[in-house]
């Protein structure tokens, strides 16, 4: 039986082709749904990408996007 890797992505826009991820989190659980591990990552906006203000309001991601010391790449 395999574990479940639950993930959720927050992006700075709605288009999967043209927007980019600003936050991703995951929780690893056993087949019995007991938590085994988790992560939560935030990153800065990619240079040259314009965030969609409405998306940023929904996911409240602006402050963490601006304040993150992690680039999208790293």
């Amino acid at each position, binding site marked *: 039986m395999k574990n479940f890797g639950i*993930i959720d992505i927050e992006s700075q826009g709605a288009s999967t082709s043209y927007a980019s991820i600003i936050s991703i989190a995951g929780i690893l659980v056993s087949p019995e749904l007991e938590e085994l591990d988790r*992560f939560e990552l935030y990153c800065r906006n990619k240079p040259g990408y314009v965030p969609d203000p409405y998306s940023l309001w929904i996911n409240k991601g602006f402050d963490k996007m601006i304040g993150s010391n992690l680039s999208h790449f790293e």
Partner: protein
Amino acid sequence: MMKQLHQYIKKWSPCIWTGWNSIGFDFVMLQKENYKSLLPIYITNTQGSEHSDFLQVARTSKLFFPDCIKTVLSDKGNAIFKLDSLGPLNFPDLDTKKFHTAIQDCETLLRVMKKLKQGAGEIFESSKLTTSKFSTKEIIKKEKIFTTIFYFYGKSRAFAATYLTDHSAYKWPMIFCLENDPKDLIKLDYNSLKESLQKPGKWVRALPLNKHPQILPVKFALQTDLYKTIGMKVLLERANLIHSNKEFGEKVGLALGEIADEKYKKQNDLLSPEDSLYAKGFPPPEDLQTMKNFHESNDWTQKNEILSKIKDERFFYFGKRLIYQNSPKTLSAEEYKKIYSNIAEKILSTEEVRWTTIPMAESLIDNIRNEKDISDDKLNYMNKVDEYIQQIRVFYEKAS
């Protein structure tokens, strides 16, 4: 972030990756970000890992076990499956301020999964059997009649179906919906059959194996009024008729392929690199090693040299973009100017395009600021976003 994310993916794999509307959004977004970052694109659904989507499992569970989870209803009386409405309704102790943060949505989903496992155990267990392409194909070929669920116009609906053929262009299974009598369809000549396939009111439907289809025993469809009226005897006769006329399935598969080819030819060949992940296929095998080398190097000058060996122009384009984003000085002055001007042209455009432009963002901010009774919180937030957008505008306006 992407490199750190891939460390977690490697550590947790193989596993069943899941999410809420993950087949429709998260996995697509992730694959496209992998593609643009020159990372293994399909890492979450290859090498033993599989994709699932608990939005589909929840919708199916609610259909047959209505008490398994509470939902609010839309104006049209359809159950709404948004995590930010399901969460507070079913788990009042959750902090509503954190909804739509990635970690909170994962936590809410975990609680939804536990609730479904408890209240709709049969659906939960069945959903685990269709996360792999191979096992799903095996089930639909083995079970002469099965129940599957399609979602349209805000509602889920059960179908009693039988496997018919594979789509000759897309290769995914096509199933025959047994509420239709195949008797007359089988008699149609090839052109009439093709015409029938292009009309609304589908008697054949696609069941892409990589989209976590919900496949259940036929007893579930037989709970619905439509199939109770038709009855198991007639459903079985129809399924037998389909399976004893192999030529019918072959003709359908072929006709669907021709229809797809005709549509494809009508599409514009000039797809942008951003839109070309699925349309232009997998990277050439030799590029995979080059991309691996690109990531193994910690020096951007060296990465730039490695990039020159990439054969597929899509990955070369995104590689140069990665250098622009992370180490612009590594690019030649000419390369830098080309990318910078191209971005400026795109994001300062006043046309209606598929990416967010600065004029679009400014207009959205104005609309939000003009909302009646806007809270101070929201107004301050939008002012901060506006300030950021203006910084981008100033930087890219220098290109003109």
